[in-house]
Structure formats: C-alpha cells, structure tokens
C-alpha cells in the first residue's frame, strides 16, 4: 500500500521518493518546496530545532489545505511531509511537492500550502541555541472560524 501523501514523521524526508510518488503521467511539472533548519534566528545562533505535532490533526489539516489548493488552481497531486523530533541545521523540516500539468499553477499552489501550513497546522518548534538554552518559537494563533464548516 502506498503511504499517505500527508504525513508527520520522525524519519528524514526522501525528496526523490516523494517526487516519484506524487507525479503522474498527466503532469508536466513538479515543484518541491524544501523547508530547512537555519543556523540563526533573530541574530541568535541556532544549533538545532525540536518539532512536535498533534499528528492526527496535522495530517487532517494538511489534507484539507492541499484539497483547497488543488481545487483553486487545478493542479495534480500534492504531497506534504512534516518532520518531528530533533533536527539539526541543514535538515529538512517540511517538504511540499505539487505536481501539475502546467508550472504556473504549481508555483501558486505551493506558496498557498506553506503559508496555510504556518497558520493552521498544529505543529510547534523549540529552538536550541549554540550558547545554550532553548525557547519555544512564537507562532500564529489559528483563526478558529476558519475550520468550522
């Protein structure tokens, strides 16, 4: 059985496999967004990040957001994988693949998915600093009405 295209995982993300899983013969393009742990934040040297998620809800929200993007831009399949656990600088925390018959729609849809992910998918991160200490990164307060159907 193929893995779900929307998943929260402790394992490193395999970009090539994700692209292969997502692209269909009707697609002419696939766009990979690769979100990476950066070595500084607000002028402070970051050594690593620790991610946590409400995994069942996060996967449901990723599916919902991808569905909205597909409907709005008429892309092909979309896959989103988010890491949890400890990630070192340079490791990918999130990967978004948008496959599409045409490239323009893929760029729009990819941007939409990452922006919405940051606003409403229940994932949190704690920064660990090179000079010691760790802090939860301030985030977005989800708009509650948004999820009410």
């Amino acid at each position: 059985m193929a893995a779900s295209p929307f998943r929260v995982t402790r394992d490193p993300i395999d970009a090539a496999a994700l692209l292969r899983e997502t692209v269909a013969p009707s697609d002419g393009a696939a766009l990979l967004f690769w979100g990476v742990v950066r070595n500084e934040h607000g002028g402070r040297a970051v050594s690593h990040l620790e991610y946590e998620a409400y995994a069942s809800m996060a996967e449901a929200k990723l599916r919902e957001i991808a569905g909205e993007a597909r409907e709005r831009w008429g892309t092909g399949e979309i896959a989103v994988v988010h890491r949890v656990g400890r990630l070192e600088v340079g490791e990918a925390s999130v990967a978004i693949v948008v496959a599409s018959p045409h490239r323009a729609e893929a760029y729009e849809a990819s941007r939409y998915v990452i922006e919405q992910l940051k606003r409403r998918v229940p994932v949190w991160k704690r920064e660990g600093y090179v000079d010691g200490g760790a802090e939860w990164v301030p985030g977005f307060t989800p708009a509650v009405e948004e999820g009410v159907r």
Partner: protein
Amino acid sequence: MPMTVRSLFFATYRDLAGADELLVELPATATVEDLVRELRAARSGLAALPPAPAVAVNLEYAPLSTRLSDGDEVAFIPPVAGG
C-alpha cells in the same frame, strides 16, 4: 449524567499543565468554555492558560460555545509554528 472528555496539551500549554493529557469530568451540558474554566481553576499551572485559547474538538478547530459529548478529544492549541 456527567461525561468525561480527554484534554490534550501541546508545547507551551503542556508545560503549564505538567501533563500531555488529562481526563476531565463535566456536567452533560458542558461547552468548551466550561472545560476551559474548569481547567484554569483545577490545576495551578493551568491558571495561566488564556481564557479563550484555540481549541480543537475531535481534530477540528471549534469555538468556545461548542457543546461537548462524552468521550470527546479536546486539544488545546498554542500558537502554531510549523514549517
């Protein structure tokens, strides 16, 4: 008849609660708002929980006025920071 709901805490809210989850008994007609009030009063760390936190009931964001049912999973969602 009273009901029991499962409250889940993440990130900064877990630090306040000192637990990942708590089972809370409530009157049968209780809403999310009643649960928040109960938790803020019942556990010293949770007094610092905002009076109107973002909450998800059974995996969907839900307003404070939402009526709860026995066995519901109610997650307290601090500001999210994925990506």
